[in-house]
């Protein structure tokens, strides 16, 4: 098979881009929540995992009822996953973080780790620790046939979906009434309250949005990998967290940039050096960034709030 250098490079490039977009999708959830309440939501990866499981279960149920049309299957299970994961995210905030809103910063962090462990084990008990095959929800697109060795249908869908979501999210935050309220809440919660913004609602909305993005990521990774288990959220969560820190936590373009850089680092590292050290490349990059630019690539050097 013909395999020139440029082709190989391009293949790795696309692979990194796909992977990076998923990291970015999940990283957005971390960074948005951090921007608003300065909390690292360690249970975010679990929301992603729950999104993937919801899609799997919905698709299985639909198939059992005789629904086989791929478009129906994809949209119904995707939407169910998004709704279900959002409900989890919303509840998570209400149960584990809201009561600790005025507690020292370490308390909600511990609570987040606790929720992460709880949700992992909850799914472990319900779904066993085995890898469960994820149905191939996305039928192959005929026009991608000639380039299928570089970019598969799933990769293509991942890239398109992520791009659309990023544009919508940017629009939401920059231009809409609720997005402006989110930015105001991030900058000064007390003042936002006094201007008539229901801060609790904005925080809930942030968790819902972040969880929806994570669920989309979960469904797409499930389709790409073909199998999922209760532990996928942990690894993906740590990677996405790395991406968020890399780009500058709290910064939305930073999360996207961090995700892509992380994806490419892993892809090129494994492709040109060795595939055994995928995680080593990712975390070495994190260490380097933290040494040379602790606030992240697009993070702002902020003076502490007075």
């Amino acid at each position, binding site marked *: 098979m013909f395999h020139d250098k440029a082709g190989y490079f391009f293949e790795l490039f696309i692979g990194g881009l796909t992977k990076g977009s998923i990291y970015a999708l999940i990283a957005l959830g971390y960074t948005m929540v951090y921007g608003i309440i300065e909390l690292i939501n360690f249970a975010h990866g679990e929301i992603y995992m729950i999104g993937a499981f919801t899609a799997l279960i919905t698709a299985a149920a639909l198939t059992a009822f005789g629904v086989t049309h791929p478009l129906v299957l994809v949209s119904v299970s995707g939407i169910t996953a998004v709704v279900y994961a959002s409900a989890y995210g919303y509840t998570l905030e209400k149960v584990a973080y809201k009561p600790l809103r005025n507690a020292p910063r370490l308390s909600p962090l511990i609570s987040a780790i606790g929720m992460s462990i709880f949700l992992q084990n909850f799914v472990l008990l319900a779904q066993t620790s085995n890898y469960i095959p994820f149905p191939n929800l996305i039928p192959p697109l005929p026009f991608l046939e000639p380039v299928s060795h570089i970019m598969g249908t799933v990769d293509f869908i991942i890239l398109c979906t992520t791009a659309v979501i990023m544009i*919508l999210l940017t629009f*939401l935050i920059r*231009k*809409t*009434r*609720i*997005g*402006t*309220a989110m*930015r*105001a809440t991030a*900058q*000064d919660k*007390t*003042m*936002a*309250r*006094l*201007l*008539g*913004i*229901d*801060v609790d609602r904005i925080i809930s*909305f942030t968790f819902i949005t972040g969880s929806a993005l994570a669920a989309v990521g979960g469904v797409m990774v499930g389709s790409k990998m073909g199998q999922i288990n209760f532990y996928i959220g942990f690894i993906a969560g740590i990677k996405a967290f790395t991406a968020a820190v890399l780009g500058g936590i709290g910064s939305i373009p930073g999360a996207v940039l961090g995700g892509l850089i992380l994806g490419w680092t892993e892809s090129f590292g494994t492709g040109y050096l060795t595939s055994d050290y995928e995680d080593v490349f990712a975390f070495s990059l994190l260490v380097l960034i933290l040494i040379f630019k602790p606030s992240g690539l697009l993070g702002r050097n902020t003076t502490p709030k007075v």
Partner: protein
Amino acid sequence: MNPILNVRQLTMDFGGIRALARLDLTVNHGEIAALIGPNGAGKTTFFNCVTGLYVPTSGDVFIHATPEKSVRINGMKPHRVTRAGLSRTFQNIRLFKEMTALENVMIGRHCRTHAGIFGAFFRNRATRDEEQRIIHDSYRLLEIVGLEDQVNFRALNLPYGDQRKLEIARALAAEPRLLLLDEPAAGMNSQETRDLTSLILKIRDEFNIAILLIEHDMKLVMTLSERIFVMDYGRKIAEGTPEDIRTNPDVIRAYLGEDSHA
């Protein structure tokens, strides 16, 4: 005399310290009143209790939307107090520094607008009309405070006096019936203070609202206020016209100390 704000026996304890002690206070519709007193007298605590940042230990705070209808607002969440018709500014400027002047004022209109998430994406007629209205109203407010040439400046790039004005414009955007100003002239030079004095009068006349201000600049207080409340150690020690206050022996004692015979 239509009261707009009615405070009865308001008490606020922090642990063993009584910051406000059975405070009675009424602000009437369309009136400019001032709350003065030495540092630590409890003036800002009073503002915080009234705007919902603190939940008072006891007592009542009422806002009269109309002479017949009043809302009890103590213990209400701050954003609901704002909706009930009360806006404030802070001693230290609290603008959204990274946003433009226009955006700051637009956020102030948040509680008077409705567009939800669906409207934001589908951009139906109602949403677009509302957006146009918000922008139009916000421009007008910036014009009134004299910032029409700085609408797209980021708040942190505005000079100090203009930041103060922007804060007032933002507070007005919520369509308050009563505006609370916490030391609006703090840090201003005498020219800026004079401008502020005429701005406050202009706002009262243009919007027909009541204004209650905390201020240490006695010249500004005496020029503007129709009524003055004096606080010391969490109690109200005097109330009256600027003339009454100037000659009140209790006030003089609070400001100058127990033994003075000023």
